[in-house]
């Protein structure tokens, strides 16, 4: 048999590492619960068009009376327009998850870029970037997000952008710290000595090494993005035609569900947010603990 190429060896090692992480992740009960809950919710959200009838979301086709209490027909009652709350929560998952994930991609993208650049180039670039990061880190991000989504054209896109642009600093700091740690290792020195350029070092060595932690951080960021989205939608900055869970709660408050005591209208969207956020957070924390030896029990 011929000797495997260095790339093949590297990939073999990476596969082994992933297997090890997976084994350790499986031993974390919280993380396992989070992962199971997420898989279920994502599957339900993706297959909603196949499993349910979207026409029930249209107020003109509503079959129930306004604010009907839960019954055999409407398991979670109806909203102020007579639509099934269960159906809305189900379809709301699609919007909430989509916005959460997209906003996270924006956030993690900016954070990784800034973090790697700040650590890799050092000097002035680093000083300016970190100053910038620290500034955005302490800035009350909800206020900034409110401002952004007000001046942009209202809708999902504005919310994605507003959440993404305001939540990247913690990722940037994490990535910077990790990049600094990676770049101080001897093999990077060796790569430099062999004449590697910035692009080569960053793409071939730094990014693979920080990818794992960024992934764990991404999971945590999705949790925050979903809460952020619901908050902005609740404040009336969302798109009323794309009813996310926050949008539902906004409508519930606006229609007097609180004074009416319509708990079936108020509880499900909030519980859904809490469940998804908790699932993301448990999975993210478990992943972080497995990947970041500093957090592990000694």
């Amino acid at each position, binding site marked *: 048999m011929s000797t495997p190429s260095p790339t093949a060896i590297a990939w073999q090692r990476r596969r082994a590492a992933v297997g090890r992480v997976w084994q350790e992740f499986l031993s974390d009960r919280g993380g396992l619960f989070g992962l199971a809950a997420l898989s279920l919710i994502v599957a339900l959200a993706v297959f909603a068009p196949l499993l349910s009838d979207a026409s029930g979301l249209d107020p003109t086709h509503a079959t129930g009376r306004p604010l009907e209490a839960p019954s055999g027909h409407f398991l979670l009652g109806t909203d102020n327009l007579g639509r099934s709350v269960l159906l809305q929560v189900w379809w709301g998952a699609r919007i909430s998850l989509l916005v959460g994930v997209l906003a996270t991609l924006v956030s993690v993208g900016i954070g990784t870029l800034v973090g790697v650049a700040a650590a890799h180039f050092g000097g002035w670039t680093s000083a300016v970037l970190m100053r910038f990061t620290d500034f955005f880190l302490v800035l009350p991000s*909800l*206020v900034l997000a*409110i401002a952004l989504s007000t001046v942009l054209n209202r809708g999902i896109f504005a919310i994605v952008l507003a959440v993404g642009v305001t939540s990247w600093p*913690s990722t940037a700091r994490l990535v910077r710290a990790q990049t600094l740690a990676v770049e101080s290792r001897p093999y990077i020195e060796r790569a430099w000595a062999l004449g590697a350029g910035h692009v080569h070092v960053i793409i071939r060595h730094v990014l693979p090494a920080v990818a794992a932690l960024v992934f764990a951080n991404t999971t945590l960021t999705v949790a925050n993005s979903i809460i952020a989205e619901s908050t902005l939608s*609740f404040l009336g900055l969302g798109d009323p035609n794309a009813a996310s869970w926050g949008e539902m709660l906004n409508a519930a408050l606006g229609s007097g569900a609180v004074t009416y005591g319509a708990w079936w209208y108020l509880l499900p969207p909030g519980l859904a*947010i809490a469940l998804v956020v908790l699932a993301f957070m448990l999975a993210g924390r478990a992943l972080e603990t497995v990947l970041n030896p500093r957090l592990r029990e000694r």
Partner: protein
Amino acid sequence: MIGPVSTALAPDLAPPTTPGGRGGGTVRHLATKLGGAVVSLLMVIVLGFFLFRVLPGDPVKTITRGAPVGPQQLAALRHELGLDKPIAAQFVDYLAQLARGDLGESYQFRVPVSTLIGERIGPTVLLVGVATALAILVGLWLGTRAAWRRGSRFDRISTGVALLLWSAPTFWLGLVLLTVTGNLFPSQGLINPNTPAGFLPQTLDLLHHLTLPCLTLVAVLYAQYLLVMRSSLLEEMNADYLVTAKAKGLRDDLVRRRHAVPNAMLPTVTLIFLNLGLVVSGAVTVETVFSWPGLGLLTYQALQGPDLPLLQGLFVVLAGAVLVMNLIAELLYQVIDPRVRAT
């Protein structure tokens, strides 16, 4: 919105281990911090201008969104608001106004923004102050106990509840509390106009109104403080000086109180201040749910317009306040941590 309480943030926050004790270094350190804060404030001001004058393209269109207005009216409005000048001139005007403490006039209320903010700041400070103080007390106490008995039933339950509360959106917790308590507590406002005059009845009515919004805010904030304190104390639990303290014959609670907690407190304090933005966002949503007449409710009201000058003023004031609080925290850190304190 909610900064992740990832402990991964902590290493960067660890106090510098460089030996202190040189007076000159401290002065320079102070100057750097102050300079940094001034730069940050300037950035807030520029950001405020950028967000509300540059980014909307034509603010007048945003204001009149949906309303049928003719081109003449638009032009007149632009002129009235000084929006027909070149952008650089507008920026100079904006700076000059700010320097005079003038934040412009609210479109909606037709009063100066500074007056509005001045009226509303008291209730917010009351709500946020009381809630933060309670949340810190409860959170740090529970977090300490949870970490000390790691893995115990107490730890699992209190950490679980904290994670659950932290996962729930603030405004929803408020809505649920409102629905659950029914008519036990007033659902809106600061004080009932029918309350008899006199200090005691007025105060009691205020507290009655304060209960629910405060409880909601505490529920979200304490959870975060608990988690931060717990992870920070867990980091300290492996420290060698705790073995020394035990070897001296100290009781368990003294080891914890005298040695572990003071050390774990330092990163916790920093993280608490770093996450003040969370308190602000909590205030916005809680005040909206309970119609608590503070800056948060004002923000919500400004959104409805949108009332751009009011939003701009609120943005500058809230962001500025958080920055100033952060500066205070950093200066405080100098006093409480001997490793960065000058002797």
